[in-house]
């Protein structure tokens, strides 16, 4: 199976994640979609790592996982804080700031 296939798969996942961010209104789900985008990146990294036969990509992917975890932590923290403030948990309702 050539690397191209992996990359194509990764591209599809990335786009799916992007579509999710654009269409979903629940911040939790938006965060999930962001995970998808990061995972697409991971897949590409690992595929390239395999392609070049060096470990940089894999290490990069590990770091990305860490980052993803951090983003999730903060994101969920925010969601909780928003929920606590009794604000709607909906990205479309949060538009006090505009213009």
């Amino acid at each position: 199976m050539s690397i191209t296939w992996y990359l194509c798969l990764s591209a599809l996942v990335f786009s799916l994640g992007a579509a999710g961010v654009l269409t979903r209104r629940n911040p939790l789900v938006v965060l999930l979609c962001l995970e998808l985008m990061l995972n697409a990146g991971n897949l590409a990294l690992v595929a390239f790592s395999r392609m070049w036969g060096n470990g940089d990509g894999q290490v990069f992917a590990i770091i990305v996982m860490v980052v993803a975890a951090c983003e999730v932590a903060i994101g969920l923290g925010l969601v909780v804080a928003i929920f606590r403030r009794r604000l709607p948990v909906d990205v479309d309702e949060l538009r006090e700031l505009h213009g």
Partner: protein
Amino acid sequence: MSPTTAAWLALAFPLAGTIINALLYRTGRTSRLTGYVGTAALALSFAFAIVAFLSLQGRDPEHRQIVSTLYDYAVTGSIDARMAILVDPLSVLMLLVVTGVSMLIHLYSVAYMGGDRGYARFFAYLNFFVFSMLLLVLASNFVLLVIGWAFVTAASTLLISFWYRRQTATRAGVKSFVINVLGDIGIILGTFFILRHTGTLDFLGTFAQAQELGAQHQADLTAGLILLLVGAFAKSAQIPLHTWLPDAMEGPTPVSALIHAATMVTAGVYLIARMHPLFEQSATAANVGAIVGVVTLLVAATIGLVVTDLKRIIAYSTMSQIGYMIMAVSTGAYVAGMFHLMTHAFFKALLFMAAGSVISAMGGEQNLDRMRGFRKAMPFTYGCFVIGGLALAGIPPFSGFFSKDEILLVQAQIGGWHWILYVVGYLAAFLTAIYTWRMIFRAFWGEPNEQARELEHGHLWHAPQPTNPATGEVEDTDVGFPGPEHHIAEREGPMKLAMGTLAFLATIGGIVLIPKTTTWLDDFLEPTFANSSVVHHASNGKLWLGLALGAALGLAGIFIAYKIWATGDGRAALHLRERLAGVHRLFVNKWYFDEIIGWLIVRPASWFGRFAQQTFERIVVNGVFVGGSTGVVRAGSAAVRALQSGFLRAYAALLLVGAAAVILYFLLQS
């Protein structure tokens, strides 16, 4: 004393008078101090003019053209304008005429303006005018000439709108100024045409190259001279730039006498005479001058026949007479032109002074229709008027007789189409006699009117409420007007003295150049016109024919006037008016020049102003340039803000669209 020193001093005194009078503006209403200061300045100036004359006479004929430079005025690049005067017979003649006549008019004004609240101002202006006129006359280069030219315009404007609370006066002032600025432009542009090839602004330097100029740059020379003529026409009220002169009669009568009759308006004549070396190189330009002159003299005479404002009649007459002079100097009859200039200064100033006296007696009223029978009430004035009238009508042996015939004689001499000028000149002379005497008969003959009767009983008539004769508007008496205090020659020594002197001069002025008898003027001016290529030798036959014709036509004119107005109560004129209604309308409306100029120039200009103010400024300058650009920016701003909707997902969408666009670009690059 050298002639130039004397000329500088003659120039300096009026200026000193101006300054002193300006500083004396606070002198009381009854003080005639400033009047005498002004007159004294002119007297001194006249004295030095005589000194200059004598001193010049004392020199060799070859050395009678002297330039004296005070300092560099603007010597840079391709111009060399110096503060320098040219003293030669021509300028000295003008110096004498101007200072002499001015002195008398100053004297006249001392009394005539006695009641005016702007007395000091008047004399300051008047002195300034003389200074300017002398500057014009003495200028040794084009720049100084233009400066003097413009200064007299300014002085004239100030004096026309002397009673500046009258809107008619200020309007007339502006009109005269603007038309004369047009003349200035003409001279400036004309100068450029000449300067372009000569490389100097100096008169003598230019004249020295006149031959080459005519030979090599005929077109430029002609263009330049015609532009100079525009200046001359504007200043000398020649058609079509004459319309300011009748309006200028808004000024006090001494002003009309000095500026608009005797001196300033003849500047155009002087200019052409001064430029004769150039005009002789360009027949076209000279012909233009001659034709305009002749047209003016006829048209002005016809208008003079029908106008009823006393001063305006004299003003049109002035135009007409200057037409003679312009015609003369344009056809090479320099001496004749200058001769007529001089005699005209005498008799026309006299006429204006006399008219001023009558107007005073009328309480400021200038309408001829209202005047009647002042003969007994104002014998001195009447006498002066008659002398002036005889001179103007060209009755021998009064001065006008000789000078006018001299001009027309030259036309006959040249022959060809100049015969037309000759004929028209005599026709106009005939008309001149008619309208001049129409004035005299109507104002002085017949049953005395209310004002005249009152004067006969020993006191001057005053209007219960002074009004502006032109509009009927009630006067604003603050700044003075021919107002509560009028002064007539019969009661004022200075006026009498001035008028008497002028009457004398008007009578005997012709003595300087009587055909076959005296050639004083010819001899005197000889050095200036020495290089003139145009030399006229009149045959005896033409000479006598002309003299006889002139006298006959003058007398005929007077006779007709007598028949109609002195004995016939003007009914014949009314009859004629009905018969020739169209012609009369044309004359009364001054050949519609004001209207034509209004249509051609004033209206488009004011339309353009209104268009700019109301439309262009708003729509283009503020609309397109300011509003347009800010509008675009504002619209953009609104769009950007609309995009900034606050919806997170929209932001993400734009981000991805941007990303997609960037990728697309890079894909295309690969």
